Protein backbone atom coordinates (compact mmCIF):
# COMPACT_ATOMS: atom_id res chain seq x y z
CA UNK A 1 0.00 0.00 0.00
CA UNK A 2 1.34 3.40 -0.97
CA UNK A 3 1.72 5.82 1.92
CA UNK A 4 2.75 8.74 -0.21
CA UNK A 5 2.72 9.32 -3.96
CA UNK A 6 4.38 12.11 -5.86
CA UNK A 7 2.65 12.52 -9.19
CA UNK A 8 4.23 14.37 -12.11
CA UNK A 9 6.07 16.75 -9.81
CA UNK A 10 8.09 19.57 -11.37
CA UNK A 11 10.16 22.10 -9.49
CA UNK A 12 12.09 25.14 -10.66
CA UNK A 13 14.33 27.31 -8.50
CA UNK A 14 16.36 30.35 -9.52
CA UNK A 15 15.46 29.68 -13.17
CA UNK A 16 16.87 26.16 -12.92
CA UNK A 17 14.66 23.15 -13.44
CA UNK A 18 15.52 20.84 -10.53
CA UNK A 19 13.30 18.01 -11.72
CA UNK A 20 10.45 17.61 -14.10
CA UNK A 21 7.46 15.24 -14.25
CA UNK A 22 8.87 13.20 -11.40
CA UNK A 23 6.89 10.22 -10.06
CA UNK A 24 7.76 8.53 -6.80
CA UNK A 25 5.92 6.35 -4.34
CA UNK A 26 6.81 5.26 -0.85
CA UNK A 27 4.98 2.19 0.38
CA UNK A 28 4.26 0.75 3.79
CA UNK A 29 7.25 -1.14 5.15
CA UNK A 30 9.70 0.48 2.76
CA UNK A 31 12.69 2.78 3.06
CA UNK A 32 13.46 5.03 0.11
CA UNK A 33 16.96 6.48 0.05
CA UNK A 34 17.04 9.65 -1.96
CA UNK A 35 20.43 10.07 -3.60
CA UNK A 36 21.96 12.81 -5.67
CA UNK A 37 24.69 15.43 -5.81
CA UNK A 38 24.54 18.65 -3.80
CA UNK A 39 21.99 20.91 -5.44
CA UNK A 40 20.21 18.07 -7.24
CA UNK A 41 16.97 18.97 -5.45
CA UNK A 42 16.72 16.36 -2.69
CA UNK A 43 15.73 18.83 0.03
CA UNK A 44 13.34 20.62 -2.34
CA UNK A 45 11.68 17.30 -3.13
CA UNK A 46 11.28 16.43 0.55
CA UNK A 47 9.86 19.88 1.31
CA UNK A 48 7.32 19.45 -1.49
CA UNK A 49 6.48 16.02 -0.14
CA UNK A 50 5.64 17.38 3.32
CA UNK A 51 3.77 20.43 1.98
CA UNK A 52 6.31 23.09 2.97
CA UNK A 53 6.86 24.03 -0.68
CA UNK A 54 4.53 23.98 -3.61
CA UNK A 55 5.56 22.23 -6.82
CA UNK A 56 5.29 24.02 -10.12
CA UNK A 57 3.21 21.15 -11.43
CA UNK A 58 1.98 17.88 -10.06
CA UNK A 59 0.52 16.82 -6.76
CA UNK A 60 1.29 14.90 -3.62
CA UNK A 61 -1.08 12.18 -2.44
CA UNK A 62 -0.71 11.17 1.20
CA UNK A 63 -2.65 8.13 2.43
CA UNK A 64 -4.88 8.23 -0.68
CA UNK A 65 -5.84 11.89 -0.19
CA UNK A 66 -4.34 15.08 -1.59
CA UNK A 67 -1.83 16.44 0.92
CA UNK A 68 -3.30 19.29 2.95
CA UNK A 69 -0.93 20.79 5.54
CA UNK A 70 -3.80 22.03 7.70
CA UNK A 71 -5.52 18.64 7.78
CA UNK A 72 -5.26 16.32 10.78
CA UNK A 73 -3.73 13.56 8.59
CA UNK A 74 -0.46 15.49 8.32
CA UNK A 75 0.17 14.55 11.95
CA UNK A 76 0.96 10.99 10.91
CA UNK A 77 4.02 12.37 9.14
CA UNK A 78 7.20 13.34 10.98
CA UNK A 79 9.65 15.63 9.24
CA UNK A 80 13.17 16.21 10.48
CA UNK A 81 14.78 18.82 8.28
CA UNK A 82 18.05 20.73 8.30
CA UNK A 83 16.78 23.03 11.03
CA UNK A 84 16.22 21.40 14.42
CA UNK A 85 12.75 22.82 15.11
CA UNK A 86 13.65 23.63 18.72
CA UNK A 87 13.59 27.03 20.35
CA UNK A 88 17.15 27.68 21.61
CA UNK A 89 16.01 29.41 24.81
CA UNK A 90 13.85 26.48 25.91
CA UNK A 91 15.10 23.17 27.26
CA UNK A 92 14.91 19.89 25.37
CA UNK A 93 12.05 18.71 27.60
CA UNK A 94 10.02 21.91 27.15
CA UNK A 95 10.57 21.93 23.40
CA UNK A 96 9.41 18.33 23.08
CA UNK A 97 6.49 18.88 25.46
CA UNK A 98 5.20 21.77 23.34
CA UNK A 99 5.78 19.79 20.15
CA UNK A 100 3.72 16.91 21.58
CA UNK A 101 0.91 19.13 22.81
CA UNK A 102 0.70 20.88 19.44
CA UNK A 103 0.27 17.46 17.84
CA UNK A 104 -2.18 16.45 20.58
CA UNK A 105 0.00 13.47 21.51
CA UNK A 106 -0.37 11.80 24.87
CA UNK A 107 3.28 11.95 25.87
CA UNK A 108 4.25 12.16 29.52
CA UNK A 109 7.25 14.05 30.83
CA UNK A 110 8.68 10.73 32.00
CA UNK A 111 8.51 9.37 28.45
CA UNK A 112 10.33 12.45 27.16
CA UNK A 113 13.04 12.14 29.82
CA UNK A 114 13.46 8.41 29.07
CA UNK A 115 13.76 9.14 25.35
CA UNK A 116 16.36 11.85 25.96
CA UNK A 117 18.29 9.50 28.24
CA UNK A 118 18.09 6.81 25.56
CA UNK A 119 19.63 9.34 23.17
CA UNK A 120 22.45 9.97 25.63
CA UNK A 121 21.25 13.40 26.70
CA UNK A 122 21.12 12.54 30.37
CA UNK A 123 21.74 15.61 32.53
CA UNK A 124 21.07 17.98 29.62
CA UNK A 125 17.27 17.68 29.60
CA UNK A 126 16.74 20.99 31.39
CA UNK A 127 19.48 23.03 29.71
CA UNK A 128 18.42 25.55 27.04
CA UNK A 129 19.11 23.86 23.72
CA UNK A 130 21.40 26.72 22.65
CA UNK A 131 23.97 25.33 25.07
CA UNK A 132 23.93 21.93 23.38
CA UNK A 133 26.36 20.93 20.63
CA UNK A 134 25.13 20.56 17.05
CA UNK A 135 24.99 16.78 17.45
CA UNK A 136 23.08 17.02 20.71
CA UNK A 137 20.59 19.46 19.18
CA UNK A 138 20.15 17.00 16.36
CA UNK A 139 19.39 14.25 18.86
CA UNK A 140 16.70 16.42 20.48
CA UNK A 141 15.13 16.89 17.03
CA UNK A 142 15.34 13.15 16.34
CA UNK A 143 13.73 12.33 19.72
CA UNK A 144 10.41 13.00 17.95
CA UNK A 145 10.88 9.71 16.09
CA UNK A 146 10.79 7.88 19.41
CA UNK A 147 7.97 9.92 20.95
CA UNK A 148 5.27 9.64 18.28
CA UNK A 149 4.47 5.98 17.96
CA UNK A 150 1.53 6.17 15.56
CA UNK A 151 3.38 7.88 12.69
CA UNK A 152 3.02 6.38 9.22
CA UNK A 153 5.78 8.23 7.40
CA UNK A 154 9.12 9.68 8.39
CA UNK A 155 10.71 12.25 6.12
CA UNK A 156 14.33 12.69 7.13
CA UNK A 157 16.66 15.20 5.53
CA UNK A 158 20.28 14.27 6.29
CA UNK A 159 19.38 12.77 9.69
CA UNK A 160 22.95 11.60 10.42
CA UNK A 161 24.53 15.06 10.15
CA UNK A 162 26.63 15.91 13.24
CA UNK A 163 25.80 12.62 14.97
CA UNK A 164 28.47 10.39 16.49
CA UNK A 165 28.96 6.78 15.39
CA UNK A 166 26.95 5.28 18.26
CA UNK A 167 23.94 7.52 17.66
CA UNK A 168 24.07 6.85 13.91
CA UNK A 169 23.99 3.15 14.70
CA UNK A 170 21.09 3.63 17.14
CA UNK A 171 19.14 5.68 14.61
CA UNK A 172 19.73 3.10 11.86
CA UNK A 173 18.30 0.38 14.11
CA UNK A 174 15.32 2.57 14.98
CA UNK A 175 14.61 3.30 11.30
CA UNK A 176 14.89 -0.42 10.48
CA UNK A 177 12.53 -1.32 13.32
CA UNK A 178 9.99 1.31 12.19
CA UNK A 179 10.08 0.04 8.59
CA UNK A 180 9.84 -3.61 9.68
CA UNK A 181 6.73 -2.69 11.69
CA UNK A 182 4.99 -1.26 8.63
CA UNK A 183 6.23 2.32 8.65
CA UNK A 184 7.46 4.17 5.57
CA UNK A 185 10.62 6.25 5.46
CA UNK A 186 12.07 8.54 2.83
CA UNK A 187 15.44 10.04 3.61
CA UNK A 188 18.48 11.68 2.13
CA UNK A 189 21.98 10.98 3.33
CA UNK A 190 25.47 11.36 1.99
CA UNK A 191 26.75 9.09 4.73
CA UNK A 192 26.96 5.35 4.17
CA UNK A 193 24.91 3.79 6.94
CA UNK A 194 23.83 0.22 7.39
CA UNK A 195 20.06 0.05 7.73
CA UNK A 196 18.81 -3.52 7.71
CA UNK A 197 15.34 -3.35 6.18
CA UNK A 198 13.68 -3.43 2.74
CA UNK A 199 14.93 -0.41 0.87
CA UNK A 200 15.46 1.07 -2.53
CA UNK A 201 17.39 3.99 -3.90
CA UNK A 202 16.00 6.83 -5.93
CA UNK A 203 18.56 9.07 -7.60
CA UNK A 204 18.00 12.66 -8.62
CA UNK A 205 20.25 13.81 -11.43
CA UNK A 206 21.77 17.28 -11.18
CA UNK A 207 20.55 19.29 -14.14
CA UNK A 208 21.08 22.83 -15.41
Amino acid sequence: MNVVELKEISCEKQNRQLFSRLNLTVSKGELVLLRGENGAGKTSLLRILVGLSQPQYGRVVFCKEALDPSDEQIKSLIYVGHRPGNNPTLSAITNLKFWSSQRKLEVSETAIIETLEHLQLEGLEDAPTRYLSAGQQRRVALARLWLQRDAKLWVLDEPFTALDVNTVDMLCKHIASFVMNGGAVIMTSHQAAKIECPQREFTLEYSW
Partner: protein
Amino acid sequence: MISVALSIFQREVLIAYKQVSEIIQPLVFFIIVVSLFPLAIGPGPEILQRVSGGVIWVAAILSLLLGIERLFRDDFNDGCMEQYMMCGTPLSVIVVAKVFAHWMLNIVPLLILSPLLALFLNMTFDMYWVLILTLIVGTPTISLIGAIGVALTVSLQRSGVLLPLLLLPFFIPLLIFATSAIESASLQLPYGFQLGIMLAIFLMVLALAPFAISYSLRVSQH
Protein backbone atom coordinates in the same frame (compact mmCIF):
# COMPACT_ATOMS: atom_id res chain seq x y z
CA MET B 1 -7.74 23.53 18.14
CA ILE B 2 -8.18 25.68 21.27
CA SER B 3 -5.76 23.47 23.20
CA VAL B 4 -3.15 23.96 20.48
CA ALA B 5 -3.68 27.74 20.52
CA LEU B 6 -3.31 27.70 24.32
CA SER B 7 -0.14 25.66 24.03
CA ILE B 8 1.31 28.18 21.55
CA PHE B 9 0.31 31.04 23.86
CA GLN B 10 1.96 29.37 26.86
CA ARG B 11 5.10 28.76 24.82
CA GLU B 12 5.30 32.41 23.79
CA VAL B 13 4.87 33.58 27.38
CA LEU B 14 7.57 31.17 28.54
CA ILE B 15 10.00 32.35 25.85
CA ALA B 16 9.26 35.98 26.79
CA TYR B 17 9.92 35.13 30.44
CA LYS B 18 13.30 33.66 29.44
CA GLN B 19 14.11 36.73 27.35
CA VAL B 20 12.72 39.54 29.49
CA SER B 21 15.00 42.09 27.81
CA GLU B 22 13.07 41.60 24.56
CA ILE B 23 9.97 42.93 26.36
CA ILE B 24 11.72 45.62 28.37
CA GLN B 25 13.62 47.24 25.49
CA PRO B 26 10.56 48.46 23.53
CA LEU B 27 8.99 49.60 26.81
CA VAL B 28 12.05 51.66 27.76
CA PHE B 29 12.09 53.04 24.20
CA PHE B 30 8.44 54.04 24.65
CA ILE B 31 9.14 55.82 27.96
CA ILE B 32 12.18 57.64 26.56
CA VAL B 33 10.35 58.86 23.44
CA VAL B 34 7.40 60.15 25.50
CA SER B 35 9.75 61.77 28.04
CA LEU B 36 11.69 63.57 25.31
CA PHE B 37 8.72 65.61 24.18
CA PRO B 38 8.29 67.74 27.34
CA LEU B 39 12.02 68.44 27.14
CA ALA B 40 11.86 69.39 23.45
CA ILE B 41 8.71 71.49 23.31
CA GLY B 42 8.88 73.00 26.78
CA PRO B 43 6.98 72.29 29.99
CA GLY B 44 3.93 74.47 29.12
CA PRO B 45 0.96 72.38 30.37
CA GLU B 46 -1.44 73.54 27.63
CA ILE B 47 0.84 72.61 24.71
CA LEU B 48 1.72 69.27 26.33
CA GLN B 49 -1.93 68.48 26.90
CA ARG B 50 -2.74 69.23 23.26
CA VAL B 51 -0.02 66.97 21.82
CA SER B 52 -0.19 64.25 24.50
CA GLY B 53 -2.53 61.86 22.67
CA GLY B 54 -0.53 61.99 19.44
CA VAL B 55 2.80 61.64 21.24
CA ILE B 56 1.74 58.55 23.18
CA TRP B 57 0.18 56.97 20.11
CA VAL B 58 3.20 57.57 17.85
CA ALA B 59 5.52 56.27 20.58
CA ALA B 60 3.29 53.20 21.07
CA ILE B 61 3.32 52.41 17.33
CA LEU B 62 7.10 52.79 17.09
CA SER B 63 7.78 50.71 20.19
CA LEU B 64 5.43 47.96 18.99
CA LEU B 65 7.20 47.90 15.63
CA LEU B 66 10.54 47.66 17.41
CA GLY B 67 9.68 44.31 18.90
CA ILE B 68 7.45 42.88 16.23
CA GLU B 69 10.21 41.80 13.87
CA ARG B 70 10.98 38.78 16.05
CA LEU B 71 7.37 37.63 16.05
CA PHE B 72 8.06 34.94 13.44
CA ARG B 73 11.78 35.34 12.69
CA ASP B 74 13.08 33.09 15.47
CA ASP B 75 10.57 30.35 14.68
CA PHE B 76 11.43 30.68 11.00
CA ASN B 77 15.19 30.44 11.60
CA ASP B 78 15.17 27.56 14.06
CA GLY B 79 12.69 25.43 12.12
CA CYS B 80 9.80 25.66 14.62
CA MET B 81 7.64 27.25 11.91
CA GLU B 82 8.08 24.12 9.77
CA GLN B 83 6.86 22.03 12.69
CA TYR B 84 3.86 24.35 13.22
CA MET B 85 2.93 23.89 9.58
CA MET B 86 2.81 20.13 10.10
CA CYS B 87 1.02 19.93 13.44
CA GLY B 88 -2.42 19.44 11.89
CA THR B 89 -3.86 22.74 13.16
CA PRO B 90 -4.57 25.52 10.66
CA LEU B 91 -1.66 27.94 10.58
CA SER B 92 -4.11 30.85 10.88
CA VAL B 93 -5.07 29.64 14.39
CA ILE B 94 -1.42 29.35 15.39
CA VAL B 95 -0.55 32.84 14.15
CA VAL B 96 -3.52 34.37 15.98
CA ALA B 97 -2.27 32.77 19.21
CA LYS B 98 1.21 34.13 18.56
CA VAL B 99 -0.03 37.63 17.73
CA PHE B 100 -2.31 37.66 20.78
CA ALA B 101 0.62 36.64 23.00
CA HIS B 102 2.77 39.35 21.45
CA TRP B 103 0.03 41.92 22.07
CA MET B 104 -0.46 40.84 25.67
CA LEU B 105 3.25 40.89 26.43
CA ASN B 106 3.89 44.24 24.80
CA ILE B 107 0.74 46.24 25.41
CA VAL B 108 -0.26 45.29 28.96
CA PRO B 109 3.02 46.66 30.44
CA LEU B 110 2.48 49.77 28.34
CA LEU B 111 -1.03 50.22 29.75
CA ILE B 112 0.31 49.75 33.28
CA LEU B 113 2.89 52.46 32.69
CA SER B 114 0.52 54.86 30.99
CA PRO B 115 -0.77 56.74 34.12
CA LEU B 116 2.78 57.91 34.75
CA LEU B 117 3.13 59.10 31.16
CA ALA B 118 -0.26 60.79 31.28
CA LEU B 119 1.03 62.69 34.28
CA PHE B 120 4.17 63.71 32.33
CA LEU B 121 2.00 65.15 29.58
CA ASN B 122 -0.58 66.81 31.81
CA MET B 123 -3.51 64.73 30.55
CA THR B 124 -6.91 65.11 32.17
CA PHE B 125 -8.70 62.04 33.52
CA ASP B 126 -11.15 62.03 30.57
CA MET B 127 -8.28 62.16 28.08
CA TYR B 128 -6.43 59.41 29.91
CA TRP B 129 -9.51 57.17 29.97
CA VAL B 130 -10.05 57.60 26.22
CA LEU B 131 -6.33 57.07 25.59
CA ILE B 132 -6.55 53.69 27.33
CA LEU B 133 -9.68 52.78 25.33
CA THR B 134 -8.03 53.73 22.01
CA LEU B 135 -4.92 51.75 22.92
CA ILE B 136 -7.00 48.67 23.82
CA VAL B 137 -9.02 48.88 20.60
CA GLY B 138 -6.26 50.11 18.27
CA THR B 139 -3.09 48.26 19.25
CA PRO B 140 -4.36 44.75 18.34
CA THR B 141 -4.81 46.12 14.80
CA ILE B 142 -1.17 47.26 14.84
CA SER B 143 -0.07 43.79 15.97
CA LEU B 144 -2.14 42.03 13.29
CA ILE B 145 -1.11 44.32 10.41
CA GLY B 146 2.47 44.25 11.70
CA ALA B 147 2.38 40.46 11.67
CA ILE B 148 1.46 40.48 7.97
CA GLY B 149 4.50 42.64 7.27
CA VAL B 150 6.74 40.39 9.36
CA ALA B 151 5.41 37.27 7.62
CA LEU B 152 6.10 38.83 4.21
CA THR B 153 9.67 39.84 5.06
CA VAL B 154 10.66 36.97 7.36
CA SER B 155 12.79 35.23 4.74
CA LEU B 156 14.70 38.40 3.82
CA GLN B 157 18.18 38.82 5.27
CA ARG B 158 17.85 42.48 6.27
CA SER B 159 14.31 43.64 6.69
CA GLY B 160 14.94 46.03 9.61
CA VAL B 161 14.19 49.30 7.77
CA LEU B 162 11.88 47.81 5.18
CA LEU B 163 9.36 46.67 7.76
CA PRO B 164 8.47 50.11 9.25
CA LEU B 165 8.48 51.61 5.75
CA LEU B 166 5.96 49.00 4.65
CA LEU B 167 3.77 49.22 7.72
CA LEU B 168 3.67 52.81 8.96
CA PRO B 169 1.35 54.12 6.20
CA PHE B 170 -1.26 51.53 7.24
CA PHE B 171 -1.40 52.98 10.75
CA ILE B 172 -2.34 56.51 9.62
CA PRO B 173 -6.14 55.95 9.88
CA LEU B 174 -5.75 54.52 13.38
CA LEU B 175 -3.62 57.45 14.44
CA ILE B 176 -6.13 59.96 13.06
CA PHE B 177 -9.12 58.38 14.82
CA ALA B 178 -7.27 57.75 18.09
CA THR B 179 -5.95 61.30 18.42
CA SER B 180 -9.32 62.68 17.32
CA ALA B 181 -11.06 60.67 20.08
CA ILE B 182 -8.60 61.94 22.69
CA GLU B 183 -9.04 65.52 21.47
CA SER B 184 -12.83 65.17 21.62
CA ALA B 185 -12.52 63.92 25.20
CA SER B 186 -10.38 66.93 26.10
CA LEU B 187 -13.15 69.22 24.74
CA GLN B 188 -15.86 67.23 26.57
CA LEU B 189 -17.29 66.11 23.22
CA PRO B 190 -18.57 62.61 22.40
CA TYR B 191 -15.88 60.23 21.15
CA GLY B 192 -17.92 57.07 20.50
CA PHE B 193 -17.81 57.51 16.72
CA GLN B 194 -14.01 57.44 16.55
CA LEU B 195 -13.84 54.44 18.88
CA GLY B 196 -16.51 52.71 16.79
CA ILE B 197 -14.50 53.20 13.61
CA MET B 198 -11.36 51.88 15.33
CA LEU B 199 -13.30 48.85 16.55
CA ALA B 200 -14.64 48.25 13.03
CA ILE B 201 -11.10 48.42 11.60
CA PHE B 202 -9.95 45.95 14.26
CA LEU B 203 -12.76 43.49 13.53
CA MET B 204 -12.12 43.66 9.80
CA VAL B 205 -8.39 43.12 10.29
CA LEU B 206 -9.07 40.29 12.77
CA ALA B 207 -11.22 38.52 10.18
CA LEU B 208 -8.75 38.85 7.32
CA ALA B 209 -5.24 39.13 8.77
CA PRO B 210 -4.84 35.51 10.06
CA PHE B 211 -5.27 34.18 6.52
CA ALA B 212 -2.96 36.82 5.05
CA ILE B 213 -0.32 36.07 7.70
CA SER B 214 -0.46 32.29 7.22
CA TYR B 215 -0.38 32.63 3.43
CA SER B 216 2.59 35.00 3.64
CA LEU B 217 4.42 32.59 5.94
CA ARG B 218 3.85 29.71 3.52
CA VAL B 219 5.13 31.84 0.65
CA SER B 220 8.18 32.78 2.72
CA GLN B 221 8.85 29.09 3.44
CA HIS B 222 8.81 28.34 -0.27
